[in-house]
């Protein structure tokens, strides 16, 4: 038996399993990101709202979610939450991919809490005089937002959002706990089927690292393309 067997990773059943896992991980990333961004936007606006009860709601959301580990979120959405639903919906859920849905819910809610804080601080970083100056120049509310405030706010907001995406990518691995057949899960399956721990974990590590470095590269590119301007 060779020390490191590449053939296992290049072709055959185990190769297919690992690649399927990687694809599912990427799907989890995409689905959670698409759901998390609008939630984060709403929560950020809640936190900036002039009404105190809405601000409190936003604060409660962010703090509750951030101070509980993602694993506990996953366990709750997979084991706990479906039990609270009516029997019919429960049956329908259990017939489908309930573990994947639970993972996506947990991941999006968790990521949204962190992203909301980034969006909030991005908008807050723009002095209100910028808005006032835009209005004074004769732009309407939307025109001012689109031409003056948002271009500046986005420059500040996007880099932290990219680093949250990196965290989200690494967090998808926790879905393995509730049995989602993503990359980490498949690596474990291949390991127990073949006893080639080194090869399967090396594949998974290389895959995680490649995507992570790609995301980091994106952040660096953005930083060069749109450097933060001092106001």
């Amino acid at each position: 038996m060779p020390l490191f067997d590449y053939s296992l990773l290049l072709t055959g059943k185990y190769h297919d399993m690992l690649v399927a896992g990687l694809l599912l991980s990427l799907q989890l990333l995409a689905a959670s990101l698409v759901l998390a961004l609008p939630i984060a936007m709403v929560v950020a606006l809640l936190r900036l709202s002039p009404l105190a009860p809405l601000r409190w709601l936003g604060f409660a959301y962010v703090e509750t979610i951030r101070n509980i580990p993602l694993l506990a979120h996953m366990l709750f959405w997979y084991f706990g939450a479906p039990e609270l639903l009516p029997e019919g919906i429960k049956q329908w859920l259990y017939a489908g991919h309930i573990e994947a849905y639970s993972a996506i819910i947990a991941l999006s809610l968790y990521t949204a809490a962190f992203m909301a804080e980034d969006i909030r601080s991005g908008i807050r970083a723009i002095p209100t005089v910028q808005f006032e100056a835009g209005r004074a120049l004769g732009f309407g509310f939307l025109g001012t937002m689109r031409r003056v405030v948002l271009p500046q706010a986005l420059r500040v907001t996007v880099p932290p959002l990219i680093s949250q995406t990196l965290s989200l990518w690494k967090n998808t691995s926790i879905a393995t706990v509730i049995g989602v057949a993503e990359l980490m899960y498949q690596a474990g399956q291949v390991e127990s089927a073949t006893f080639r721990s080194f090869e399967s974990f090396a594949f998974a590590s290389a895959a995680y690292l490649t995507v992570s470095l790609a995301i980091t590269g994106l952040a660096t590119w953005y930083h060069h393309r749109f450097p933060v301007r001092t106001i």
Partner: protein
Amino acid sequence: MLEIISDYWVYFLIGQYPNGPLGGLVLTLLLASCGLVLALPLGIVLGLARVSPWRWLRWPVTGFVFVVRGLPLLMVIFWAYFFLPSVTGVKTDQFTTMLIALVVFDAAYLAEIVRAGIQGLPRGQMETARALGLDYGRAMRLVVLPQALRSMLPSLVNQFVSTIKETSLGYIIGLAEVSFIATQINTQVFTKPAQIYLILGLTYFILCFGLSRFAYWLERRLARRGMSVANPASAPKVSA
């Protein structure tokens, strides 16, 4: 919900101890504390290497930090779980495995906190110390690092919060920390998963929210007393 708490609170807090291994919330806290205490010196060493003027030291450590920060903690745990027994020759228990994974993982993150702390100081601090005749090592140890570490205090408390949250991943290698115990209770009670996991979430929340508020308070207190790096004029006197 109250019924579950009154039936299982001892199990939830300490697991099977003293009739078996220690577990539950106490194990979570023990693991997080040991992890952070052991990771801190390693993180400082790595952080110093990241800002060191010597390339042969800076580059490998930078590579290490990038690799560990690019991997999920779960991957690091899997590597530790698989590598430790084959390297040491003895089957390491879950606690040791988890502790080592946490120390490696946290040290890489702490290294970045230390680096940011050092680079956040005005360059003049290092230059003045060198001009006073201290060599690089002493200037770092006596002038730069004490200030950088003080400004890092709130980040350290936040890192402790992260570490508490990270210990939950011990669940996957069967470590009897609080999430694992909650799942055990769930299999015994069987009918009330939502309540049990709500209790688990609430427990983490109380702990972590309290600590992160403490970090916030600490940050404001350090800023008010003029001890943050933002105000180098009031930096403590150094006896060289």
